């Protein structure tokens, strides 16, 4: 496959900033988590592109480690989502603006 490295990086950057826009604009906790997932995928695309560019396998291994870390992060954060929903009855991020209790 012959594409310039810039195009791979531009695609991954576009994915990353779409995820960033989702995190910043949405107010639902689940949608915020989805935005984080999109950002992580964008980073993974950049890693795989670098791995192919330098003909080196390290980037792909980083992508796999990234997936493992993501699954850990998602399990914890979804457990917290369930906890917050039970506790407050809403997933609106604006509802969680107090530090006490």
């Amino acid at each position, binding site marked *: *496959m*012959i*594409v*310039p*490295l*810039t*195009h*791979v990086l*531009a*695609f991954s*950057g*576009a*994915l990353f*900033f*779409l*995820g*960033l*826009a*989702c995190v*910043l*604009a*949405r*107010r639902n906790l*689940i*949608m915020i988590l*989805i935005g984080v*997932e*999109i950002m992580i*995928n964008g980073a*993974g*695309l950049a890693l*795989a*592109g670098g*791995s*192919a*560019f330098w*003909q080196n*396998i*390290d980037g*792909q*291994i980083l*992508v*796999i*480690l990234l*997936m*493992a*870390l*993501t*699954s*850990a992060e*998602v*399990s914890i954060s*979804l*457990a917290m989502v*369930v*906890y917050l*929903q039970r506790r407050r009855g*809403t*997933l609106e991020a*604006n509802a969680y603006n107090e530090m006490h209790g």
Partner: protein
Amino acid sequence: MATILFYILGFTALAATLLCITRRNPVHAIIYLVNALFALALLFYLLGAPLVAAWEVIIYAGAIMVLFLFIIMMLELAPDQEIKGPGWLRWGPVLLLSLVLLACTVLLMVADPGSSQEVPAYYASPRTFGYALFKQYALAVEIVSFQLLFAAVGAYYVGRPEQRKKPKGGTP
């Protein structure tokens, strides 16, 4: 051929992601994200990472997104929980910020003299991958396994059933 496929898949992933982040119903958003992840898995395959492509489908689309779906269905979320107000007030600044950051990134990449170098064809067989992962990066695998264990313990702790409050004081 592969080059054309790369651009088609890239724009498919971007379009599906764009649809995903603008849906009001989280279930629809997750279905679009699964679509984007399939396109992304094919991109990984084109970049010479067949094992990563398979795991992208298996772990991301198969496990993580289904976990999201389970949580959404378990909590019975109402699909329309957005705040009031005009949409541009929420999306305008965010889009401006993201577009400016993206434009700066792209400009930096274009200004780089080595930017027009092309990604050569590359293929890492699963055998090579496994050797590198479990020999060179064995310590990282161990650390990740520890972290998964901690995540499981933490998720269980956070999601434990609520205990009844014990009566305070020694009233017999």
